[in-house]
């Protein structure tokens, strides 16, 4: 029989049992929609994270002190391990292709501004290149200069949220904030809103010359011993450095490693620091979200299989219920394969139509979910194909057994069936 005729017969049979067909499809609809929505959620999350990371500024290299390797035994000189503040200047001055270097040292303190007391505010001591490396824009006032950093000038630039919390409508410029008991800082500027980057809320902290944090706000008992140690140096690489240029990122990394190893008197095999690139972080993040995504896809896949079992269940019932119909078809000349194809096509149609409805439900559902939860959802084209394709496969797979049962019925038995 021509496929178009089989499809027509199967379609007529399904339309005759609208409610049952719809209920049978429900499993597939939910399964397909679940696959699309879950992948949309994880893709949305992934994209947000990725944008957040690149929002930190691209072409970044992170130089971190690795404490394990830092030899901190008694009698060691402070320059003998870990990163120090001066390393940043060395990198900025001696390495080609470096656009900016930033050092950050944070401290958490209670802060008083006028009558407002805010507890556990993160104070970020940083350096002159911070706004350009971190893509932070000054909204009002100004940022501080290297000269002010060198002179440990007690000034601060506020994150946008913090400025609002501390001063509300009042212009914060020139206002004084008190950190801890005694350190008084003058506000010289406010940053534009930056938003959350990863776990860090850049808008709810404030920024001072790093020397203020190193010299006045480090309440670590080892502070004096640690001296001007820093945990992290950010290096922004010049935009001309890249895969296609003569000098690659790896060249710059190697130069930094070599320089720091020399300064710290350690070997390259056992460095007291680690260097990570922005790309490394994105890659790590991607593998995490990929794992998350495949977990979700598996969960959704299971619901598709459950939907398929639903189809098989109903098809089996349907074969029994329609035994007489099968007998009649056989008596007028339907071959076993005609019957098999009819039931298989019914199962396939159920899952394809169900899949189609599921795709629509998934796309609409993703949008609604995104609106309702505030989470970002991104419809992934491949997920639509995957879900729809799996629905078809599920239909054929779970439709085959009932179809075969139907095909093998004996015409006489089938005709006699009440």
């Amino acid at each position, binding site marked *: 029989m021509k496929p178009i005729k089989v499809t027509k017969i199967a379609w007529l049979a399904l339309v005759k049992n609208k409610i049952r067909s719809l209920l049978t499809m429900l499993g597939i609809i939910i399964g397909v929609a679940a696959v699309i929505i879950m992948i949309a959620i994880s893709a949305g999350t992934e994209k947000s994270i990725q944008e957040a990371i690149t929002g930190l500024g691209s072409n970044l290299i992170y130089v971190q002190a690795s404490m394990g390797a830092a030899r901190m035994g008694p009698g060691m000189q402070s320059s003998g391990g870990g990163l120090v503040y001066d390393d940043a200047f060395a990198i900025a001055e001696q390495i080609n292709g470096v656009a900016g270097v930033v050092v950050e040292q944070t401290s958490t303190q209670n802060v008083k501004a006028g009558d407002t007391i805010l507890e556990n505010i993160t104070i970020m001591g940083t350096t002159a290149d911070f706004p350009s490396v971190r893509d932070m824009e000054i909204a009002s006032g100004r940022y501080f200069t290297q000269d002010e950093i060198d002179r440990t000038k007690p000034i601060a630039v506020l994150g946008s949220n913090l400025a609002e919390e501390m001063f509300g409508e009042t212009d914060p410029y020139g206002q004084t904030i008190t950190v801890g008991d005694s350190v008084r800082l003058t506000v010289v500027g406010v940053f534009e809103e930056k938003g959350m980057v990863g776990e860090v809320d850049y808008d709810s902290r404030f920024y001072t010359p790093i020397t203020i944090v190193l010299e006045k706000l480090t309440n670590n008992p080892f502070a004096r011993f640690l001296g001007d140690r820093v945990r992290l140096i950010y290096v922004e690489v010049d935009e001309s450095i890249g895969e296609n240029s003569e000098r690659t990122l790896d060249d710059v990394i190697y130069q930094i490693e070599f320089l720091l190893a020399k300064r710290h008197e350690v070997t390259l095999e056992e460095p007291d620091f680690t260097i990570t690139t922005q790309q490394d972080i994105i890659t790590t993040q991607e593998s995490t979200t990929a794992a998350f995504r495949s977990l979700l896809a598996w969960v959704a896949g299971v619901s598709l299989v459950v939907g398929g079992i639903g189809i098989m269940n109903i098809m089996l019932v349907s074969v029994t219920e329609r035994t007489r119909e099968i007998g009649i078809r056989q*008596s*007028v000349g339907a*071959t076993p394969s005609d019957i098999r194809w009819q039931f298989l096509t019914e199962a396939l149609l159920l899952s394809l139509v169900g899949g189609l409805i599921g795709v629509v439900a998934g796309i609409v559902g993703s949008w609604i979910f995104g609106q309702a939860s505030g989470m970002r959802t991104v419809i992934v084209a491949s997920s639509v194909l995957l879900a729809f394709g799996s629905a078809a496969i599920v239909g054929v797979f779970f439709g085959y057994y009932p179809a075969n049962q139907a095909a093998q019925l004996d015409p006489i038995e089938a005709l006699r069936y009440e």
Partner: protein
Amino acid sequence: MKKSKVIIDGKNLVKVYQMGDFEVRALNGASIQVQEGEFMAIMGPSGSGKSTLMNVLGCLMSPTSGEYFLDGEDVSELNKVELARIRNQKLGFIFQNYNLLARTSAFQNVILPLFYNRASLLTEEEQQEKAAQILEAVGLGDRIYHEPQELSGGQQQRVSIARALVNDPVLVLADEPTGNLDSRSGAEIMALLKDLHRKGTTIVMVTHDPEIAAYTDRTIHLLDGKVAREVKNGKEHA
């Protein structure tokens, strides 16, 4: 009398059912011949093998042994697929309980055998035309889109007769065609069959009602899976 073609030529048909340890010989060497254009009845008490003979003649099952030529083709050893083709192209069935597809219009029921006819050269439009014409011919021209539950028993049986005829079969098999009908509808159905016969259709009918059998040219009586006697034109032959 002109010499006509043999439509059914069954020799020594045996059908054995295995029921656990013992076997039932539903047909035990039945031989039967039907000429083209004949209208024949099969009678016999229950258990005599009427239904089994009908199923074998209707290619719904193969005999355990014996030869069965239908329209000159040996069909006793065909497989399921080939039997389906024979049923589709050479046979038409009329059942006691009509066996129409429920919630399916008379028209769709009648066109069904054409769906399965691989040899048909008719286009879809021609098939539809033919189904409508045949429904018209059996007197249901004004009810072709009615579903079985909207039709009387007699009308349903007319639909099933139309369905039996749609592929121009060489043989129509009727199994108690009036069994579920009142006497008036029954008489109408028999008149329709008689009319078909007059136009040249070969019909074999199973019945237990001698009055119904009287419509036919010839009656064979089955007993214990064999042809016990044959009655022609009202006269008995040993």
